[in-house]
């Protein structure tokens, strides 16, 4: 301040910052802020940071502030993002390298590379395509359902088959994929690949319609050789993204077929078998050495009828019985106007729980609830049921912040919120949960990476966004808390509720597998912090 300004202020009687009562005011202000911060989810963690971690945290915040003020960094919204530019930033490098713990809401769809999937579909022997209507017009090709399935070689010779692209196609007739490719009317094989990719990724931008491509991918994934090949990629993508354990929500919507077998299996146990085998195979490779594992949260669509849901639950029970290490929980998901509320499904869920108990199977609930404003009352009301039904986690709880009592309840019952900052435009909901001390872990979903093969960095993108977002509290220390939570709430082994809760409570001080993994993660995090302080040493010296 210029000297004459100062003089003028004193003359006017304007209080100065150093005046006792202004100081008093500022002290009151600090204490009010501190009082609030004591409730924050990461209050204790921040006090316990090692010197290296504290330094790394400061450096990362400086990098963030520097990159935020740079005009080229997009402020919000996916349309404007140029990931190519983002990847060149320092913040991206930091996030990419950060050990990310567990991904608790993984999706096989989200982690596969669609181009590669199509390549596999084109070279898999015996794969057929079918549709309930001829795909003879542009419009039909854009909208009519399409299914892939394995079948034994057709009895008719190839040239007698009516093309699926012609009006004469008989509904639901199986056409060898090769035949469909070579006769594709809009540009042969290249055109076919483009068309199929379009169908698989249709609705990718609009989260509400994001599942329109899902049935096609599901049909491909229900054939053993394709499933195996995709799972290998999926595990590799996760490990490359810095994730060491994942729980996949998977909807078993299509009958499974073993390699070279036209008749479908009656259940999904063999699917689980393959999942288990591929996981073990990956863990025996170099890149998979540190990968702790992956499990499946059996997910049933909430749009099905009671009978269909019960049948689906039975299949789940069979799969759990046969491959207990694969199935770790149960969920109901799906959006849209025909989606039923949990309260409507309560009888079925109680029945399921009783069947589990009778059969001695541990299949806890990991419900979707309160996931988006768009689904309004249904999703919001599901929060009450999910909590009362004893869910262990909630995905993604976007509307929880509107419910003071439920927020307390979630804290008391040690329910984790799997928050997906990119699925809805609700990024600002996260700070409201964290400031109240709700336990949260970050999650992606099949919507985040879309179906376009960004899988290998999907989780990095999610964390980068949170770090760069509007939330000034979401720094490296805050993220560390979110990652620690992801490990504490991982369902590594089947446990009865009491054991589950006590292990979460003990955290790193426990004696079982969870405590060990927390210790390992903190060691890795410390190394990572050291790397940050060395790599960006200059950054630290500025502040």
């Amino acid at each position: 301040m210029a000297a004459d300004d100062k003089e003028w202020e004193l003359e006017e009687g304007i209080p100065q910052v150093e005046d006792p009562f202004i100081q008093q005011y500022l002290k009151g202000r600090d204490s009010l802020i501190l009082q609030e911060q004591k409730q924050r989810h990461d209050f204790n963690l921040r006090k316990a940071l090692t010197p290296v971690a504290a330094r790394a945290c400061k450096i990362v915040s400086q990098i963030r502030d520097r990159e935020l003020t740079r005009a080229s960094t997009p402020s919000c919204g996916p349309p404007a993002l140029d990931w190519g530019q983002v990847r060149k930033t320092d913040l991206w490098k930091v996030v990419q390298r950060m050990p990310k713990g567990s991904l608790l809401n993984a999706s096989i769809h989200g982690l596969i590379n669609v181009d590669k999937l199509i390549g596999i579909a084109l070279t898999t022997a015996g794969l057929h395509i079918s549709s309930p209507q001829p795909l003879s017009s542009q419009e039909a090709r854009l909208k009519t359902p399409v299914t892939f399935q394995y079948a034994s070689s057709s009895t008719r010779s190839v040239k007698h088959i009516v093309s699926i692209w012609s009006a004469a196609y008989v509904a639901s007739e199986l056409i060898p994929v090769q035949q469909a490719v070579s006769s594709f009317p809009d540009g042969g094989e290249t055109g076919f690949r483009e068309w199929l990719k379009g169908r698989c990724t249709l609705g990718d931008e609009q989260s509400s319609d994001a599942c329109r491509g899902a049935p096609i991918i599901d049909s491909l994934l229900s054939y053993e050789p394709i499933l195996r090949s995709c799972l290998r990629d999926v595990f590799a993508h996760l490990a490359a993204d810095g994730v060491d354990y994942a729980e996949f929500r998977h909807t078993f919507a299509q009958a499974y077929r073993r390699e070279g077998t036209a008749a479908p299996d009656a259940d999904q146990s063999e699917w689980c078998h393959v999942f288990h085998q591929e996981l073990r195979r990956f863990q025996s490779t170099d890149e998979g050495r540190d990968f702790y594992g992956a499990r499946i949260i059996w997910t049933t669509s909430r749009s099905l009828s009671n009978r269909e849901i019960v049948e689906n639950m039975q299949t789940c029970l069979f799969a759990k019985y046969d491959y207990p290490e694969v199935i770790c929980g149960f969920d109901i998901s799906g959006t849209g106007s025909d989606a039923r509320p949990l309260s409507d499904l309560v009888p079925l869920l109680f029945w399921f729980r009783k069947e589990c108990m009778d059969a001695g199977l541990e299949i806890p609930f990991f419900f979707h609830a309160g996931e988006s404003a768009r689904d309004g009352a249904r999703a919001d009301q599901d929060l009450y049921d999910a909590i009362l039904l004893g869910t262990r986690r909630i995905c993604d709880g976007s509307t929880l912040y509107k419910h003071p009592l439920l927020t307390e309840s979630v804290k008391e019952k040690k329910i984790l919120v799997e928050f997906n900052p990119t699925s809805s435009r609700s990024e600002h909901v996260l700070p409201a949960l964290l400031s109240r001390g709700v336990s949260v872990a970050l999650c992606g979903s099949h919507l985040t990476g879309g179906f376009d093969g960004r899988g290998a960095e999907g989780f990095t993108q999610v964390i980068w966004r949170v770090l760069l977002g509007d939330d000034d509290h979401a720094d490296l220390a805050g993220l560390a808390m979110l990652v620690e939570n992801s490990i504490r709430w991982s369902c590594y082994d089947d446990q009865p509720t009491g054991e589950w809760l006590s292990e979460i409570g003990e955290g790193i001080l426990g004696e079982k597998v969870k405590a060990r993994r927390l210790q390992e993660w903190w060691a890795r995090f410390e190394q990572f912090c050291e790397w940050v302080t060395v790599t960006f040493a200059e950054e630290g010296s500025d502040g």
Partner: protein
Amino acid sequence: MHLCKTLVAALSISAVSSAIVFDGEPDVNSSAVQKHLQDRSALITLEKRQRQDHAFRQNLSAVARQADAIVDAIRQYEIDSFWRVPGTVEDEDKERFAGEMFLKAKPLIPDTQLWKIVKRMPKGALLHAHLASMLPYEILLDAVMKTEGMVVTVSQPVTNEIEQKNATLTFAHVNHTIAASGPAIDSTDYVPNTQLPVKYAAQSFTGGSQAFADFVLSKLELQPEDSIRHDLGVDQIWRIFQAAFTPADSMMSYEPILRTFYQQLFAALIDDGINWVEIRASASSGILVHQGDEDADPNLDVYWQVMVEELDKFKQSDKGKNFWGARVIWSDIRSEDRASLTSSMKVALGRKAKFPELISGYDLVGQEDLGRPLSDVAPELVWFREQAERLNLTMPFFFHAGETLGDGNSTDYNLVDAILFNTRRIGHGFSLYKHPQLIDEVITNSIMVEVCPISNEVLRLATDVLHHPLPAMVAHGIATAISNDDPAMLGQDAAGLSYDFYQTIQGFDNIGLAGLGALAQNSLRWANFEDQSDGDWVRDIDLGERGTGIKAQYMQVWNQQWEDFCQWIVNEYGNEWQNATMGMTTA
């Protein structure tokens, strides 16, 4: 039967599964399920007790309960039958849903029954609105066109859309003759900043008066295509928004037009069911141009004198006999430096001394994110408070705070300062729901939040009403009332609260007619009808309609308006929607 079939099929595949034997079928009437459903409704009831509108709901009359149920049924019917329209792959923009972006929904809203009900509702007080942007500009422009001597200037020729967007437009009154000739403002020959009579400027504009009006209005109102571009962020829309104040202020500086403005504004508020208004405004230098003049009168009082005269005139008119009045919350620009802010504060205190009934409090306005944080302004605010006390003037604070997406940034922490400075209400408080401790403070100190749902959406804090934090505030017990902020610029394009009320009831199942009623009643409970000490202010808020002062009187009047309104709903819609009220006791 079916179960066994599945089991047999499964057995043939995986023999191990045979150990599972199913028992019974899901049953809604089983005791465990019934227990869950009881627990569920108990939990919901328990949570709702914490809601700020709980007491209001508990005290609803039988008629109001019926009306609430009827409106609930109408709303649900319209969500399903009017709003829910799926788009198609070819035409995704056909998609329609309840609670969608306001500017997309706006043309459709008047076709609904819910709109007719909301329009008619008694809305109490409008507590958060900025003077220059309270009345649709068609009305002001019409007055400008009809007023002798009004001229327009443009900072550059506007021959295409880009130039139109870049140009600055101002109006003025001149007391000498200006030739109605020369290049039109949209001709390349137009010399920047040349004054043209507005009538001539309109006639010579390509496309004539209508095209001219469209251009002028485009400088004053945010365009739908701008407000839905959430990817461009908050700062970008604020630049467009703030630029609109230049032409708006210039229209309103000429006394005859300003007088017309007030009459039209108050009439429009009464028509919308509003009885009381508190307006954010300021004039720290002489801005009023008297009839027949062209220079502003340096006298700092005349601007407010006009407002008092017009207010009195309106209250004496037939239309205005139920209008309780208007007060002004003096609002300085938060980006001003210490010297100019202090000098504005002096003007404010001077006007308060001259117009004690009109001037009611103090606030700082302008984009909060880019202006000075309240903690930085603390020395001036402490000084201001001391001066007011010394002069025996009651100038409480009604601060804007937390109008931001940030968490932990300086705008967010304005909430802390606002609370510590004993603000009586908080403007927007958009980020408050993230602060458990501050929520407690706000509730304990009876601070109300002035919520502006459409403004927050259009200025890109929430993509649509469904993403607005209002439900979180109500659920946590924070007192709120609905306001419209800048309806002439932000797309409501109507004076009054109907669109903001509509969005609120449409967006949230937990609000309903009763919740909307509670919000309207809150607006009166927290209205600053007269100068009061902090103690009296809080006492009257606590007492509400049971008090003895003017606030209690007005709340009693509103309570009667509300009962009449609910009765009208029952009479009008009761037959058609009788299923909704089945089993309810009649009044």
